[in-house]
């Protein structure tokens, strides 16, 4: 029986880092799942998580999102961005949030080796352990037909120590 959900690689930060990159991702799976628990050193309560595939900074990333804070909801769209999640609501916790709280993120990338543009879905929760919090769901597209071989995760701030990053592969057969 095939293993359908396999940990490819992971990293738990022992000190803060501006970015985490999974490189040389094997092409032996059907889909990828990225799971993150993170907190950044931005001084406000939240900080945007961003992605780049294969180191590409071309204007090839687009997204549509729904986001709610408990008191307000918003829909937003971004296109021709140089990284994924440019619209600004895809956030984890930051230093303005309750101490020791971390945001949680899951990103699903189907058919990451197929020679077609790469769609993805993402959901993130900024968990403040207080009245303020935010949840955001995204549909994204990287307009590039190359197989995904690396994923860079960054925020323009620093992910703090004990933030964790897990990359899983899923096989259909």
């Amino acid at each position, binding site marked *: 029986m095939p293993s359908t959900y396999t940990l490819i690689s992971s990293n738990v930060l022992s000190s803060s880092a501006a970015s985490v990159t999974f*490189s040389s991702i094997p092409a032996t799976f059907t889909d990828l799942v990225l799971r993150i628990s993170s907190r950044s050193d931005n001084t406000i309560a939240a900080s945007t998580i961003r992605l780049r595939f294969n180191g590409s900074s071309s204007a090839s990333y687009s997204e549509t999102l729904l986001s709610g804070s408990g008191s307000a909801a918003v829909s937003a769209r971004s296109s021709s961005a140089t990284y994924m999640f440019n619209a600004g609501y895809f956030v984890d916790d930051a230093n303005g949030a309750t101490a020791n709280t971390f945001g949680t993120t899951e990103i699903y990338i189907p058919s990451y080796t197929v020679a077609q543009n790469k769609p993805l879905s993402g959901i993130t929760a900024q968990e403040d352990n207080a009245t303020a919090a935010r949840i955001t769901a995204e549909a994204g597209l990287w307009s590039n037909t190359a197989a995904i071989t690396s994923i860079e995760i960054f925020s323009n701030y620093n992910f703090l120590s004990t933030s964790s990053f897990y990359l899983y592969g899923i096989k259909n057969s």
Partner: protein
Amino acid sequence: MATAIEINCETGEVIERPLTADEIAANEAAQAQAAADAIAAEEEATAKAAAKASAQAKLATLGLTADEVAALLG
């Protein structure tokens, strides 16, 4: 010092390196832009709230009740 971490999924090797000057500059520019965007959003929200309060006051002078004003403005 800000660092970047790369994990090679084939070998398991973890490489940690300092950010380049270009990467640091890009981060600083993005942070400045985010701060400017936040200020602009705050100013827009403040202006919108002030306009709403002004509209409510003017409607009240026309004899509308608070409930009627709320029904109009949502």
